[in-house]
């Protein structure tokens, strides 16, 4: 049995101070299998992978490669043992070419004094062959996120890896791009490469993986063939409790409710044009589309974070077309960025200060001084409402898990009692439990009269959460789906423009 395992982790234990991150965890990776690893944030997935990659050392336990004990002291050593790791956060140098990025490790070992660019380019071309259509001479920073992901994978493959770890590779991809990635994975599998695939998305796991291992609270819960289990079961094992329905009930009455926010003929002169749609009272409206279709740009523009060349925004019949974001906030329309760490929260600042960032004046006295008790009261109130888990309100946001960081970002928006909230990928990189909580919060907000607009690349989420969705293709509204017509097939059809019936509804 053990000789057919490409990699085996035996009884791995690891503690960070008082926190037991991994407790006697074992995992076997068969040759040529795609092995899904799931668990909520904090379950120990990243710690286990970091141990396999030599970034961390285990307190106890062994790693075996091809049945032989391996002492992995560094990522470089892991590379030599044939382990490739594609991290969730893309780590490419944006200012140099794709080819140079791919051959970074080779360049590092190179003895010759001068670079051989022709050779570098050839290597890159070979590594990219069969992965995707990426120009080795383009700068990495100019590529889309999915293309960057392909470069990351190519980079890992040039190191002759036989074991590939993919940490949430689809988090930043659209369905179609993810589809390409799965084709690549299938091809790698045929080459005999074993893959550890970390993801929160059940559909992907059940469509593309062979086995699935669940971790919870640093312990191994189960390893099953996907054929012998189902998503409900896996989710239950991850969370350790029954989640009930994955998505909160929809609001059928919203289909006939009054229009709250109306966007008319929004153009920015470059990324999108003639965008008109409306948001009804009590409704959660989805915006679907491929990455790069202009969804984020439309959201930014409607909140005044990006200039527009023409178009109007009406809220409750009043023209509020914003010239700046502060104007939009004053009118009651706020935006949650898709880039949580880069633009959503201040990771080094305390939780309380994060929550008051949108309107420090609200927790300040008339004299212009912040009143700490008021700031803390606001943070405690919103934190309780969103079931935020924290140690102290003075702790930096960096001490929180991804899901709780996102709750801080949402609490910040709620601090101004907004009328409309535009959320860009609100559950990206958030674990299953927190995701369901965020969906619940959004539905509660919608029911109490706050307009909710959600951009999501994850179609099951969009369909499960939203009452209605508009689909953007190449900067224009390609269509609208509602009720039973809101299916993955229909949205993909509209988003990609295949077999389009042509009849733009708005």
């Amino acid at each position, binding site marked *: 049995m053990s000789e057919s395992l490409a990699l085996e982790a035996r009884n791995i234990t690891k503690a*960070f*101070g008082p*926190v037991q*991150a991994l407790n006697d965890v074992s995992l076997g990776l068969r040759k040529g299998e795609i092995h899904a690893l799931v668990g*909520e*944030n*904090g379950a120990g997935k*990243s710690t286990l992978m970091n141990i396999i990659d030599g970034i961390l050392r285990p307190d106890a336990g062994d790693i075996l490669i091809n049945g032989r004990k391996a002492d992995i002291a560094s990522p470089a050593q892991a590379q030599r043992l044939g382990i490739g790791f594609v991290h*969730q*956060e893309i780590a490419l140098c944006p200012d140099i070419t794709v080819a140079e990025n791919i051959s970074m490790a080779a360049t590092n070992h190179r003895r010759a004094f001068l670079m051989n660019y022709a050779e570098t380019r050839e290597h890159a071309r070979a590594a990219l062959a069969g992965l995707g259509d990426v120009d080795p001479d383009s700068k990495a920073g100019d590529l889309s996120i999915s293309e960057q992901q392909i470069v990351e994978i190519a980079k890992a493959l040039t190191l002759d890896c036989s074991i590939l770890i993919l940490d949430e590779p689809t988090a930043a991809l659209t369905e179609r791009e993810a589809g390409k990635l799965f084709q690549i994975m299938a091809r790698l599998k045929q080459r005999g490469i074993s893959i550890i695939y970390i993801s929160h998305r059940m559909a992907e796991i059940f469509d593309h993986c062979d086995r699935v291992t669940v971790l919870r609270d640093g312990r191994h819960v189960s390893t099953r063939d996907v054929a012998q289990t189902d998503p409900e079961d896996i989710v239950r094992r991850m969370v350790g409790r029954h989640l009930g329905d994955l998505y909160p009930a929809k609001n059928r009455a919203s289909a006939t409710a009054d229009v709250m926010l109306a966007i008319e003929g929004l153009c920015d002169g470059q990324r999108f044009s003639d965008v008109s749609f409306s948001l009804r009272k009590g409704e959660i409206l989805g915006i679907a589309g491929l990455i790069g279709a202009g969804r984020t740009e439309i959201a930014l523009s409607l909140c005044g*974070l990006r200039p527009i060349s023409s178009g109007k925004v009406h809220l409750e019949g009043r023209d509020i077309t914003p010239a*700046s*974001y*502060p104007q939009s906030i004053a009118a009651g329309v706020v*935006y949650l*960025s898709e880039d949580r760490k*880069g*633009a*959503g*929260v*201040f*990771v*080094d*600042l*305390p939780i*309380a*200060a994060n929550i008051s*960032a949108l*309107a*420090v004046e609200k927790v*300040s006295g008339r004299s*212009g001084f*912040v009143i*700490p*008790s008021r*700031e*803390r*009261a606001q943070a*405690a*109130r919103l934190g*309780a*409402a*969103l079931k935020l888990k924290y140690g*102290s309100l*003075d702790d930096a946001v960096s*001490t*929180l*898990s*991804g899901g709780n*960081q996102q709750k801080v970002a949402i609490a910040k928006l*709620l601090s101004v*009692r907004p009328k409309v909230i535009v959320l860009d990928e609100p559950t990206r*990189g958030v*674990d299953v439990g927190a995701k369901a909580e965020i969906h*619940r919060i959004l539905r*509660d*907000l919608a*029911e*109490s009269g*706050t307009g909710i607009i959600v951009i999501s690349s994850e179609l099951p989420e969009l369909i499960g959460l939203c009452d209605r969705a508009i689909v953007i293709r190449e900067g224009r509204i390609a269509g609208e789906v509602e009720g039973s017509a809101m299916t993955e097939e229909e949205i993909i059809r509209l988003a990609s423009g295949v077999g389009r019936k042509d009849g733009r509804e708005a």
Partner: protein
Amino acid sequence: MSTMDEISGSAPHIRGGRSAGWRGLGNMRELGLVLIILALCAVMSFASPYFLTWTNFRAMLLSFSIEGIVVVGMTVLLIVGAIDLSVGSVVCFSMVVGGFFFLAGLDPWSASLLAIAASAMIGVFMALCVTRIGLHSFIVSLAFMVIVRGLCLAITGGTPLSLFSLPASFKFIGQGNIYGIPVVIIIFAVVVAIFDFLLRRATVFRKVFYTGSNEKAAQYSGIRTDRVKFFCIVLCATLAGVAGVIYMARFGAATPTFGLGMELNIIAAAVIGGASLKGGSGSILGAILGMALLSVVSSSLILLDVSPYWQDTIRGLILLAAVSFDHVLHNRRMAGAPRPAGQ
């Protein structure tokens, strides 16, 4: 009951009565600095009988009081994620402009106000370059360091302006005592107290932290980060102008080469005190303690008869040691803490 009721409801009881520690980890650093300074003082009190005297302490305080006013501005600037290399030149510029107007017949108080206004204008020019053209403050202030120094030389014709005719009432600012305490030290203490409080509590300065911590997130919170940066750059230059005027009163002269290299000492103090060159962190109290540490070291080196040729090298090594020590300590603390999952 539902989420929304709680959001709009009244505040629940806040557990724990701990005071709001806005600075969090910063407090630890300040305590550490105090301990290092005390330890150094203890050692020095054995090494030299002159060290633990009021005269020596007064001299040390005096030596960094006026510079300390500029440190305040620099700390604010570092927190917002910018830097100003021109402060030494601007201090000198303020001195020279004040002296020039005084010699031209203006009363010293009006001349001083003009000097401070002129310094603020330098800040405005720099701020425009940073926020409108989009240049980095390092480059802009490097250019202005040279430009302003040139202006000082041009105004004075390269020779010091002698200001012995300054009235005693004005010289009192730089040379007088109140109950035996130099006025300079009192001004310094007041400025530090005011800005330390403002930085922790004033809404405006809170936006400085937001902008420095994550500019994009600040913009996405509706903060006009350009205005915040503008304000900080002008504030720093203005405080440099104030310092220049006090120097003028203290020395009764305006030397066009005064303040060369001052910016480095000032940045060093702020960084030892916990300001990060990446922005988002720093405190006035810490920066002043950093300044005090540098001053105690300088004083010790002199009392120990260390060759002046070696003093700069030793000061530089101490700067490096202090910052490295803190960095290592900080990283260890971070490594020991449970890391947020999924990273």
